[in-house]
């Protein structure tokens, strides 16, 4: 189905600490979608797995607090090399390289106190809450909470808390063709007003496509055009992929890890077939 992938080209369109948007050319959709799905379900990251409660007189049950703790993103960039793989570490607390420990002890003396993710004290500086301002619980006067939490590597397919991405999408590369002979230009401009992404503009009385890549292929412009002067289509085998990290891993790392996992899976399939 996939055949041979030749002439693959990647161009990064946007890139920052949390997200990456890139254009991929000459790639089969099935391959790119496999990578996208693996970013969601198979790239490992750290998250709290168990919580040992010593004291909890807060209004929330232990189970609710544990659930909330599990969802806190923990930095995992260096943890990937340091900790054992999810398959070997699940329910294996004896193994020394599996679990990172985080502690918290808080008490509200008088007045209420909000306990934040930043109050967690980690025994490993590479495994820290990404965001320090996530509220865990509100303590009333005299209430106490004290626990030890254990975090390990896991995969998104086991629980969404281990998924390193908050969004992983791809879309077609839009191509908008304007037939200037048919177009009425400034006197009509219906398509300019209807476009939700403001892709089309009128310049010097003529219709121009200004920001082609942000087109969502909704085809509203095609629909409102009285003379069928606009044709919205897309480039074959080219896609724009967008990966938004939760902060646990760098966005490019997520894509690279997903590609590596796909490669491993393909190798595994081949070796199973050869048996």
């Amino acid at each position, binding site marked *: 189905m996939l055949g041979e992938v030749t002439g693959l080209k990647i161009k990064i369109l946007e890139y920052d600490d949390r997200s990456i948007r890139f254009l991929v050319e000459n790639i089969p959709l099935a391959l790119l979608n496999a990578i996208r799905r693996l970013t969601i379900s198979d790239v490992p990251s750290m998250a709290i797995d168990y919580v040992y*409660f010593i004291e909890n007189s807060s209004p929330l049950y232990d189970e609710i607090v544990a659930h909330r703790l599990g969802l806190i993103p923990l930095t995992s960039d260096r943890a990937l090399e340091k900790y054992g793989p999810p398959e070997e570490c699940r329910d294996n607390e004896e193994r020394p390289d599996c679990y990172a420990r985080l502690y918290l002890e808080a008490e509200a003396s008088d007045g209420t106190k909000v306990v934040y993710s930043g109050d967690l004290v980690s025994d490993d500086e590479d495994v820290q809450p990404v965001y320090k301002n996530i509220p865990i619980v509100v303590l009333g006067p005299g209430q106490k909470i004290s626990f030890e939490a254990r975090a390990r590597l896991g995969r998104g397919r086991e629980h969404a808390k281990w998924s390193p991405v908050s969004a992983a999408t791809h879309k077609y590369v839009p191509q908008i063709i304007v037939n200037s002979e048919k177009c009425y230009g400034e006197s009509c401009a219906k398509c300019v007003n209807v476009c939700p992404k403001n892709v089309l503009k009128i310049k010097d009385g003529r219709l121009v496509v200004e920001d082609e890549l942000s087109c969502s292929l909704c085809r509203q412009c095609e629909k409102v055009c009285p003379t069928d002067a606009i044709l919205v289509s897309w480039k074959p085998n080219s896609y724009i992929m967008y990966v938004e990290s939760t902060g646990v891993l760098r966005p490019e790392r997520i894509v690279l890890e997903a590609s590596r996992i796909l490669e491993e899976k393909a190798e595994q399939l081949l070796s199973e077939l050869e048996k």
Partner: protein
Amino acid sequence: MSAGRVLYKCGRCGRVFDLFQLQVLAPRIRCPYCGYRVIYKVRSPVVKKVKAI
């Protein structure tokens, strides 16, 4: 304190007592010291393991 010994705490005077004291000193469900009728169960001193799901 051994595990399994359940303690109770009075909602008004805050004094802590166990089931035995409760039955001997106050034959009905009330604080054996001040007679208040709202009593709370005290969290047992064992460490509780919870899965974060």
